Each structure stands twice: as structure tokens, then as C-alpha cells.
């Protein structure tokens, strides 16, 4: 574990990571995140668990982007937070460069947080309205002791602002003086301040206008190339996820349905849920859109409090058989690198 504290110059921090490009950086094994439901006012009794994430496994290699897609309530955001130990997982392992994060105490975790950061969905709620942009971006530098002097810190803030496409003079402005896209850039600069190797991007463009989304996506991509960043990219927009990800993981009701490379998922989807998701995405072209085969799922996502027995998707699945209602499908490798959980594949 890297616990040495002396401030390192910005450029070398990443190179000192143990993992080389292309090697596994993050390995998540059988991750479970349950939230207890209590009943009673004075004497509280646990009555059930919301199984937000229920036994999922995946890995991310250094320098790549893993896209995590699914509908609201499927557990994708919880997964991102559990990986960073913002929620302490109920069970499972999260190996980051070989260290199991679930075994660390909060002090050890804090040192490691320098290497893993998060960009939030809401550019309005995730910045403190009483701090200036410079204060927000400089705060992680203070907390982790990364700036030797005030001048050092201001220089670094100016550099970060430039990196994300803003101007250094903007550091004295408050969040309300920025547009949504600019605020998201401040959020990105804050995440970059500590030189992380791994960033969880939790729906970073969903709240932005269409014309601004592309700007932020391009920024994330060029930062990845420049700093060899590794992303866990959480989103519900499949077109955006396809654009930015190397591999894609589809979640439904706390479980992983399918995981494969970008090309495989879009050209050769195996799971009926993946197929339905893909066909539901509208395409901005009336002629091309009319030609597509469309699978419209009936019904709603069931409650994670009482997930269906057997395969969680069987209540909406167009090809479900009796086995699906009883037996939980196994998470298996259908072809090299292409994982799926379905009885009918």
C-alpha cells in the first residue's frame, strides 16, 4: 500500500502507481450492498433489506473505461459508491491495485482516496455555493497536503482550470456565476486536483444540455489520454456509453446481466434485456429509426425490496421459460471476455 505522504510533483504521481497500462487496476468480486429497512419508532426492528447491489463481479484495466448502464434503481450509482467505499459494502471484495479496500479503516482509506476520485451527476448540487471555484478545486490539495505554499496551491489551481478548459481568472467566481457545463468542468478539475489514477464518473453529462454534453465527453476523453486515467463511467444513455467505453456492463435490479467489449455488446448482444435496452434508444433520423426492430418491454422494474425469485428479469422477459422463474442464472463467460447471466443463451 502506498502510504508515504511527502508531496510529490504533479507529473510523477501517476507513474508511481503499481499497475501498468493494460493490467487489472480494479477487481470487484461478488460485491453486495444491502440497505436495511427498519420498522418501529422507539424499538427499531430490521424487517427487510433493499438489495441495491447483489453479488456483482467485474474488473477494470488501467487506462480503460468501463461503462455501467441500467435503468434508475438498478444499482449502478450504488456500485460506484461502494467501490469507493463511500458506502461500506455488505459483502465482497474490492481490490484496488491489489489492496482490498473493504478491509481498510477510514484513515487508511483517506490516503488511498488520493488515487480514486468521483465526478457527480448534478453540477448544481455538488459544488458548495459559498466557496469560490478556486477554493473548491484547492480544497483537496489542502486536505491531502499537496501544496507546499499558498502560491503553490494557486498555481496548481490555475493549471487545473486551464486543463479543463476554463480560464485562471475565473477562480474567484462562485458556482452560481458559471453555466452547467462550466460547473461540471469545475467538478472535473476538483477530481483531478489530487492526481488520481481512477475516477468514477457518475452520470457526468446527464444534467447538461445536448450541445454541452459533447464538450464534456470530449474533455473526459482527452484527459484520459493525457493522464492515462481509468474510468468507471456510469450512465443511462446507451449512445453516450458506447461512445466513451471500452467495455460495457449492463445492470438490472442489483445484478449484472451482461458484460462485454463495446463492439460485442452493440453488435452481438446476448441477453434479452440488453437487446430491449438497445432497441428502445431513439435514433435522431426518422428513416433509419423506422427500419429498426423494436422490442418494447411490458411492465415496470420490480421493487428491489421484493425482487423476483429466479432470474430478476423474468417478469419482463419476452423469452422467459419456467426455469427462469425458479433458478438464478449463473454468471458465465459465453465467449472470451463476454459474460452473461441468462438461461436462454
Amino acid at each position, binding site marked *: 500500500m502506498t502510504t508515504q505522504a511527502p508531496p510529490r510533483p504533479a507529473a510523477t504521481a501517476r507513474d508511481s502507481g503499481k499497475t501498468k497500462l493494460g493490467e487489472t487496476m480494479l477487481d470487484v468480486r461478488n460485491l453486495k450492498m444491502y440497505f436495511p429497512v427498519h420498522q418501529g419508532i422507539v424499538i427499531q426492528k430490521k424487517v427487510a433489506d433493499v438489495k441495491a447491489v447483489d453479488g456483482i463481479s467485474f474488473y477494470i484495466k488501467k487506462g480503460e473505461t468501463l461503462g455501467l448502464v441500467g435503468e434508475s434503481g438498478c444499482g449502478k450509482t450504488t456500485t460506484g459508491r461502494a467501490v469507493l467505499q463511500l458506502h461500506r459494502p455488505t459483502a465482497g471484495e474490492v481490490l484496488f491495485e491489489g489492496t482490498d479496500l473493504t478491509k481498510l479503516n477510514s484513515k487508511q482509506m483517506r490516503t488511498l482516496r488520493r488515487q480514486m476520485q468521483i465526478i457527480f451527476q448534478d453540477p448544481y448540487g455538488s459544488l458548495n455555493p459559498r466557496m469560490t471555484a478556486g477554493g473548491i478545486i484547492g480544497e483537496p490539495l489542502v486536505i491531502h497536503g499537496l501544496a507546499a505554499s499558498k502560491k503553490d496551491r494557486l498555481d496548481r489551481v490555475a493549471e487545473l482550470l486551464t486543463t479543463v478548459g476554463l480560464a485562471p481568472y475565473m477562480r474567484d467566481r462562485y458556482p452560481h456565476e458559471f453555466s452547467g457545463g462550466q460547473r461540471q468542468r469545475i467538478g472535473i478539475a476538483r477530481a483531478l486536483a489530487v492526481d488520481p489514477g481512477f475516477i468514477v464518473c457518475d452520470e457526468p453529462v446527464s444534467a447538461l444540455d445536448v450541445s454541452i454534453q*459533447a464538450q464534456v465527453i470530449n474533455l473526459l476523453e482527452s484527459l484520459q489520454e493525457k493522464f492515462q486515467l481509468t474510468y468507471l463511467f456510469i450512465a443511462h444513455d446507451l449512445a453516450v456509453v458506447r461512445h466513451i467505453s471500452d467495455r460495457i456492463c449492463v445492470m438490472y435490479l442489483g445484478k449484472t446481466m451482461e458484460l462485454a467489449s463495446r463492439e460485442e455488446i452493440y453488435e452481438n448482444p446476448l441477453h434479452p434485456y440488453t437487446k430491449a435496452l438497445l432497441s428502445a434508444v431513439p435514433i435522431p433520423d426518422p428513416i433509419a429509426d423506422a427500419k429498426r426492430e423494436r422490442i418494447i418491454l411490458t411492465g415496470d422494474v420490480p421493487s428491489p425490496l421484493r425482487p423476483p425469485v429466479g432470474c430478476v428479469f423474468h417478469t419482463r422477459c419476452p423469452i422467459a421459460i419456467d426455469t427462469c422463474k425458479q433458478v438464478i442464472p449463473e454468471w458465465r463467460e459465453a465467449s472470451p471476455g463476454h459474460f452473461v447471466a441468462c438461461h436462454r443463451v
Partner: protein
Amino acid sequence: MTTNGTDKLLLDVQDLRTHFFTQSGVVKAVDGVNWQLAEGETLALVGESGSGKSVSALTVMRLIPSPPGKIVSGKILFQGHDILQMSQKEIRAIRGNKIAMVFQEPMTSLNPVLTIRRQLTETLELHLKMNKKAAKDRAVELLLMVGIPDAARRVDDYPHQFSGGMRQRVMIAIALACDPKLIIADEPTTALDVTIQAQVLEVIKDLSERFNTAIMIITHNLGIVARFAHRVNVMYAGHIIETASAKDTYGNPAHPYTLGLLQSVPRLDEPRKSRLVPIEGSPPDLTNLPKGCPFRPRCTFAIDRCAEENPPLMLVGEKHWAACWVDVKTRRPRP
């Protein structure tokens, strides 16, 4: 029906201006727009936040809060009568009856303390003077129409017992209650998941075809529009900058902004691009619009004339208008 069958004009909006008088200045949210809608036609209003699309819709319903808002000028002819000249009583007879609205937020636009049945029968009793019994039967019928299973039982449920997609179906059922001529749907699927979006849009499309209801759908999602609309109006900074059939809007965009929007979204049906082509800059401050074309600071086609004069809508093809001095295909100024 591929395009509108009757071609009978339902709504005719002329030179409409809705401004907001705020402390930081006059916000010209809608500034001189003209558009028409025929019976049974589906019109899409596309634009980013702040482009004036929702304000346009609220103006048609006369729901602009005043102050600070004010309809400064214009006419909205609905079946030949000017909505803007009507008394409160007259407009109330139309609102929810002939023109109905579906809002974006299915979570907050239903009353949480009333049953679904009451929210449906309220409209029926008020506008159609139905008695309680008839209204209840009709309520169940409406819920079945929008695809709510087990409607007879669920009609007595409260909104919180419904999921997001189901609530949006209830909203549509309320909108349909009085057999309206026009439904204004303001971002009807934005708050919903993709698979639910597809369901709700199918319901709206199917109903509009069955009852020959005109739909005005407001959205920022270009994909949704493609599947639905007969015509598309693209708005930017309070102006309509392009209006065309859906086919032309996507296949043959004539305004740099429309072109930019289409290029900036990744598409599932096309090979992946290595980089997206964004529209640089951000939408303008409506209290302080630049002289000339409001899109000029972000436009890659701009010429000198754009800084001086705001282009009007010009005919560029069959039933296709665009407000741009430059022909985006040849990059030459229009004659």
C-alpha cells in the same frame, strides 16, 4: 396517417412575444415566433434549456405568471379565436378541455392527496357536466385506454402507489379526458427510463392517431422527435431558427445550430466516431443578446452580415424555412 389528413388549421401563432421583466433586465424568452398546427398533426418544439420552448407552450395555455411575465404582442388563433383576447372565464373553458397539457414531472404534477379517480373525474364533471357515476365509468375507461392494467381496482389508488411510467400514463389519461383537439406535452418522457419512455411514447402516438388529436411535443431529445413528429421547429434564444418536416430536419438541416445538434450526439446506428463534434461555447444570456444573429458567437459558418442583422426565416426548400444568411451546404451567403 403519415402527415395530417385534413390540413385544417387548428392553431395559428403569429408574431408571439413573451417577455419576463426581471431585476437583471428584460428576458425575451419568446421573441417573435410564428407557427401553425393542423388538426391531427404532431409538431415538435426542440431546443436547449432557455430556448423558449416551454414558455411558448405555457403562453398557448395562458399560464405565464404575471408579473414578471408578460405577453407583449402577438396572436394565438385557436380554431379561429384569439386566445390572448379571451376573458379568464373563456380560457378556463378551453384549458383542460379543448387544449390539454402533459407535464414533465409525473411525480409532482399529480395531487398526492387525491385518488386517481378524483383527479380524472374532476375534469369530466367540470367540463363535460357528467354525473358522478358516469364520470367514474369514464375514468376507468380512460385508464384502460392508456394501458393501465387492472384499472377498475387501481382507479382508487393514490399517486404514490404508481410508478413513474404509470403516473405519466395517468397524466395522459387526464389530458385525454375531454377528448381535446390539442395536447401539449412538455418533455413527457424526460424523467422516465429508456424502456418506459418507449412505452409512453407509443401510447401517445397511438392515441393521437386514433382520435385525430394534434400533439405539440416539447423536448430536447432529438431522437424522440424523429420517431414522432410530422414537423419540427428548432428554437434558439427565443426564436424559431428552423422549421421543416421531420425528414428534412434530420436529413437536410439548413441551420448551423440544427446541424451542430445532430453532429454532437453519438448515434447507436452509426460507426463510433473517435471524437464528437460539439457546438463550442454556451447558450447566450437572454437579458443581453448580441446584436445580429444570437447564434453567431458559437457559429462556424458566420459571416460579417451575421453580426449586423438577425436573419429572418427564409424559404430554403419545400415547406422548409431556416433563419441563416449562409447556405450550410455550399458555405456561401444566401442570395
